[in-house]
């Protein structure tokens, strides 16, 4: 996938959840445009061209789907890093998590999350959310110019 312009960056430690997201997005034929990261550290390495991704120019995502509880670097810290970076902060970040806790919602928005979504329990509900999410962020939404 390297070299191809990707549309969605998915940061999710639960492989089952990632599979669910990817499958539902398949219907929009952008499944191959989803790039999955298992933890915060690798996601940041990708965005900041460092670690395993050092020295290779990487495609910028149109939108980032971010889980909050992540190993190594936590979701909120990933969010902070993106929003504190002059270049990256333009990328919309959608928090996608199982937590309904007010504390988490508040912290996410406080750190400039663009949206906060709770993973629904139920197949239809999950599908519906992914449909809407796909339409909204990838079809309806106008994105800032993507720099390579």
């Amino acid at each position, binding site marked *: 996938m390297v070299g191809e312009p990707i549309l969605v960056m998915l940061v999710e430690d639960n492989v089952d959840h990632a599979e*669910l997201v990817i499958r539902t997005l398949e219907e929009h034929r952008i499944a191959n445009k989803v790039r999955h990261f298992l933890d915060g550290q690798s996601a940041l390495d990708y965005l900041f061209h460092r670690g395993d991704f050092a020295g290779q120019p990487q495609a910028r995502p149109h939108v980032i789907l971010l889980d909050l509880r992540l190993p190594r670097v936590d979701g909120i810290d990933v969010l902070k890093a993106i929003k504190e970076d002059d270049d990256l902060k333009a990328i919309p970040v959608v928090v996608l998590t*199982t*937590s*309904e*806790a007010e504390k988490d919602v508040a912290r996410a928005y406080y750190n400039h999350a663009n949206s906060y979504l709770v993973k629904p329990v139920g197949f239809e509900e999950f599908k519906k959310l992914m449909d809407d999410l796909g339409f909204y962020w990838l079809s309806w939404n106008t994105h800032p110019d993507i720099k390579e």
Partner: protein
Amino acid sequence: MTKFANRLFHIPEYSDNESNVVARLTYNAAIGLALLSLAFVIISAVVAPALLERAVIMAFMVIFTSFGVMVLIQNYKLQIASILLVSMMWLVITVGAITAGGVSAPIFIGYMIVILAGGLIPNKRIGIFISLASILTGILVVIAEINGLLPPPFQYSAIARLGIYIFFFIVTFLLQTSNTRSLQMLLKQALQSQAQYKSLLENIPATTYINSKDETAYTEYVSPQVEKLLGYPRNMFILDTLFWKKILHPEDYERVMNANHAVNMTGELFNVEYRLITKDQRVIWVKDEATLVRNESGAPQYWLGVWTDITARKHAEEEQADLVSVMTKRTIQLQTAAEVSRAASSILDLNKLLPMVADLICNHFDYYYVGIFLIEESKKWAILSAATGKQGQQMLDTNYRLKVEDSSMIGWCIKHGEARIALDVGEDAVRFKNPLLPLTRSEMALPLITRGEVIGAMTIQSQLPATFTHVDITALQTMADQVANAIQNARLFTERVNLNRELETQNAELERFTYTVSHDLRSPLVTIRGFLGYLRQDAESGDLIRFDKDLARVANAVDKMQALLNDLLELSRIGRIINPPEKIPFREIVAEAIELLNGPLEENDIRMIVQEESFPNIFGDHARLVEVMQNLVGNAAKFMGDQAHPTIEIGTDGEDADKKTIFFVRDNGIGIDHQYHERIFGLFNRLDPSIDGTGIGLTLVKRIIEIHGGRIWIQSESGAGATFYFTLPHA
């Protein structure tokens, strides 16, 4: 003129009696001579007209001279006046004798009067000179008569001769009478003033005495007041001249003798207050003031002293001093009580309050030692909780304790809930002799009672015998009551703080629990429900391969949920079910945990270092503590990374401030970065999802340690291994 005459006949007062008498005599003599010479003129005119001329001349001279003498006496020129008078008489007699024909002339007898009058002159030498001059003049007259230098003797008739003789007799008589009367008057005056002095001396409200001038101080005289003062007959002091030293109060003897010695060296005023013992054995205070009396030439004669009874004054002074001392003591007590009260109401930390109270009481009252004992939970022992001084610290260091029973004062006091005093501790069998407090002579034990319950006792010890009074006990018991209440307050406060802290911990835990349920339990549910939908799709499309895969995902999520639920149940059990604590050698716990982990430890070829010899016995729940060690050692084994020589060390590292043993489990594995040190103990927090587990292990460990009253913390750097420290109370 009348005024002058009045003044002339008024004899002025001279400063001393002797001068007064001489003045009167001279005066009288002058007037008498003037009158007699006038009488002589008259007599001459009648009986011997031939003598008239001479009698007139003589009378004139006498009257004139007498007048001069009186004026001189008026002007206090007594000596000159008397000399003038006598000289005038001498001149009259001499002229008379010469003109009347010498020794045979009757006037010659007049020299006798001159000599007699010479006695009037204050200066005795002049008196003698006049006598000699009269005799010499008589001799010269005789010589002149023998040599025929004098006119022929005058022939007196027998009557004339008698007249002249009578005249001289009368003069002699008058002078003599006047002299005698004056002497009698002087004597009377002297006697009278002596009687006055004596009466004065013997009626003043003080005893006077005369002591010998040397240091031995023999009594030479003592006034009768001594009988009233001391009850001893006055004779005692005269017969036994050193009797006064025998009735001196023994405690004052040396002081008085020293003072006596000192004034006999210097001759200064002796002024000492001391005690004497009366005949009826009373003790009285006297003020003794004595002056060394000297004669005209300054040689010491005797000591003249006065004893004044000052017993009443002394008693008043003593009473006042007593009152001041009592007031001072009360003031100190009040001040101490105020400070104890302030400390008791403002300090809630017993570790600060009790030493402060002990020091306050000990310092303010200048006691030897103050200690505060508190009863421990079983109520069998009173444990020394605060104590003053070096000895106190020494006893605190050795955990000094006394049994609550009659074998010690503190034990007795706590058992009976009453104060107890031993005024000379040697006599009170209940005192437990303490070799660290060898100087104690008085001891007081006060119970600390709050809400009717004895919670301890305070011991107060003094180096003085019999130093505690009932008032002291009351005052100190009041302070003890305040301390007892303060202890109770502090305990209640600590209890409340602990309760609050526990509640806060439980709240935080509940919050974590809610979060966990809403997040961690939700996570597998999302998976299950999501893939259940795809399972239907798989079944409909006949994609059996994906069906199997999706089914495995669902099953996996169910298992995970099951594990989480089990862990949650386990965690909630720890708080509720805990086995009664028992005394266990920590060595056994470690051995059991290692036994349980035998598989993974051997698999990974991990070297175990166990400092068994340092392990104490501990108090706790056997099974739970094994779980703790199992988790910690298991974790250490799990996070070894690619360490070539994996090693786990278990040991102890001294004690913390609460005297709990610090244990540790150290590994040389991958370590944990600083930022995660807090998070690792949180519920279901896993740092590495690639390693098995729900993330409950350290949460469990923390719970168990905290339930045992201990703490747990970590010391680690990323990549440099980790050391988990935890504390447990030793048995």
